[in-house]
């Protein structure tokens, strides 16, 4: 029975996608550590390869453990289907691969995770993809950029890493739809526990499951979730989904799979030919992590609020950019899109700039100095010298990663211990 509409978010986080293993009754999802799957006979094999029936062929295209995570995240986002990938970056590439042809372009917010900026503006050029980075708070500029005939998508983060910027998803979805293109939202920082972009009109959600969904800093992974609501045949922009696919004997994905077209294409063409499949072991770790996502996000946010308040009153701190603070510019958007929360990753400025920032990071004993977010452990980083290093000074500034900026990802430790660690680290500054 289809019954997930009856259940709450916490129940879905534990149960969606993982009924007991049909072969053994195993209640926890087994790790199907296999590359391939036997065919019943040659006719069944041919049908599988032609996408005419369902079943596993090869773990690059699909794996039962990975499929559980795909369904889990799709359910948490309220989507129709999902495609797991080896990393969040792979998810971005694969999602755009379905939408774009060489010579095409897409519009992206200029307030993005630095790694995304580099991938979009430098590496994607090699595929003939152009990325127009715009300030998504300047709606006239967004509209003008979307007007370009080659434009195939609008991309933003629900909660941007690391600047604490929150996108006005509903407004941006309206602009994207007016231009006949989907809105893609990277929901990594907020996670579906705080924000469900499909409820505000987004069409595709991207995750780095490495972060809050897995939550323990131990498994790389990415996810593309499709709302199933975008009409790919409304214009001529998306031939991968609406024109015959030669490699599948002229099959037309949108005609054949309807609102599952993007999901099936992502597996049957994207994963098949680009190859960034998620490892079953990583899927297992992410499945286990996802079970506690709602609980963890609650504590992540509580701890982050405590630390943000502490920092805001610290004499050596110039500013704190945390949308959870009263008076923050993005506080109203946090109310609308993130259930009034603001996640656990944010930035602050140390008085004394670059040098002071480096000293603070190096003096921490409990906060780990590393380049990740969404871990149980608290993390601290100086983006200008690490994650955002590849950017120009202007790009870094726009992305909220200027010279004095410190990024923290607040973990699940005792909040007072985190405050004490920062207190002793500030003494070194």
């Amino acid at each position, binding site marked *: 029975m*289809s019954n997930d509409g009856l259940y709450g978010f916490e129940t879905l986080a534990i149960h969606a*996608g993982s*009924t007991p293993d*049909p*072969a053994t009754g195993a209640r926890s999802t087994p790790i199907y550590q296999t590359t391939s799957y036997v065919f019943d006979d040659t006719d069944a094999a041919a049908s599988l390869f032609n996408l005419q*029936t369902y079943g596993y062929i090869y773990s690059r295209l699909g794996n039962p453990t990975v499929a559980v995570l795909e369904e889990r995240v799709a359910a948490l986002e309220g989507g129709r*289907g999902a495609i797991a990938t080896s990393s969040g970056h792979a998810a971005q590439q694969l999602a755009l691969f379905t939408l774009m042809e060489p010579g095409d372009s897409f519009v992206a917010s200029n307030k993005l995770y630095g790694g995304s900026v580099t991938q979009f503006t430098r590496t994607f050029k090699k595929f003939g993809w152009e990325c127009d980075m715009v300030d998504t708070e300047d709606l006239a500029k967004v509209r003008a950029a979307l007007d370009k005939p080659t434009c195939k998508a609008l991309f933003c983060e629900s909660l941007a890493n690391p600047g604490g910027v929150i996108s006005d998803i509903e407004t941006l979805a309206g602009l994207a739809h007016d231009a006949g293109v989907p809105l893609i939202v990277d929901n990594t920082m907020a996670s579906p526990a705080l924000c469900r972009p499909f409820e505000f009109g987004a069409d595709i959600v991207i995750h780095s499951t490495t972060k809050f969904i897995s939550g323990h800093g131990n498994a790389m992974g990415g996810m593309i979730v499709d709302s199933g609501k975008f009409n790919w045949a409304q214009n001529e922009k998306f031939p991968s989904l609406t024109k015959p696919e030669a490699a599948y004997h002229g099959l037309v994905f949108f005609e054949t799979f309807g609102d599952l077209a993007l999901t099936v294409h992502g597996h049957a063409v994207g994963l098949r030919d680009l190859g960034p499949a998620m490892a079953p072991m990583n899927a297992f770790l992410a499945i286990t992590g996802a079970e506690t996502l709602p609980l963890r996000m609650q504590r992540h946010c509580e701890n982050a609020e405590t630390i943000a308040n502490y920092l805001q009153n610290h004499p050596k701190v110039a500013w704190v950019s945390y949308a959870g603070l009263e008076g923050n510019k993005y506080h109203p958007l946090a109310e609308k899109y993130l259930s009034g929360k603001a996640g656990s990753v944010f930035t602050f400025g140390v008085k004394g700039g670059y040098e002071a920032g480096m000293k603070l990071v190096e003096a921490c004993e409990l906060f780990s100095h590393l380049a990740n977010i969404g871990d149980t452990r608290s993390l601290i980083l100086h983006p200008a010298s690490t994650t955002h290093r590849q950017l120009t000074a202007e790009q870094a500034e726009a992305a909220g990663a200027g010279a004095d900026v410190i990024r923290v990802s607040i973990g699940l430790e005792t909040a007072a211990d985190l405050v004490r660690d920062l207190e002793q680290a500030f003494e070194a500054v």
Partner: protein
Amino acid sequence: MDSHVVAMVGASPNWNRPSFFVMKYLQAKGFRVLPINPAAEGQEILGENVFASLEQLPCKVDLVDIFRNSEAAGPITDQAIKINAKAVWMQLTVRNDAAAARAEKAGLKVVMNRCPKIEFARLNGEIGWSGVNSGVISSKRRKISS
């Protein structure tokens, strides 16, 4: 699914058309599928004779599955009502609300913009392969599908 005989309107004899492999799949799951296609009348598709219209079918039909466009689905739905089918199913991207209302008024069940092959697989756990959100939450072990 309590429909055992399916009339498939718009069934194609071409092996790589969606209707062909939906028919093949439903046959494999134990349904009898009767193909309707005036252009292929008298031919055979997957071992079944092709009929020109629903009215020509020699037996009772539980479900009428429509592989035609939304507009054509109107008169086909009316024929389905006439031959006392129990349900009308319009395929993915096919939707005709007026026809659906007429069918429901006549006591038929109606599904639109969905594929019976995908829905069957979704509900019996076969479809995990493609990352589909099945909507199924259960602590019971499922039967292994053949």
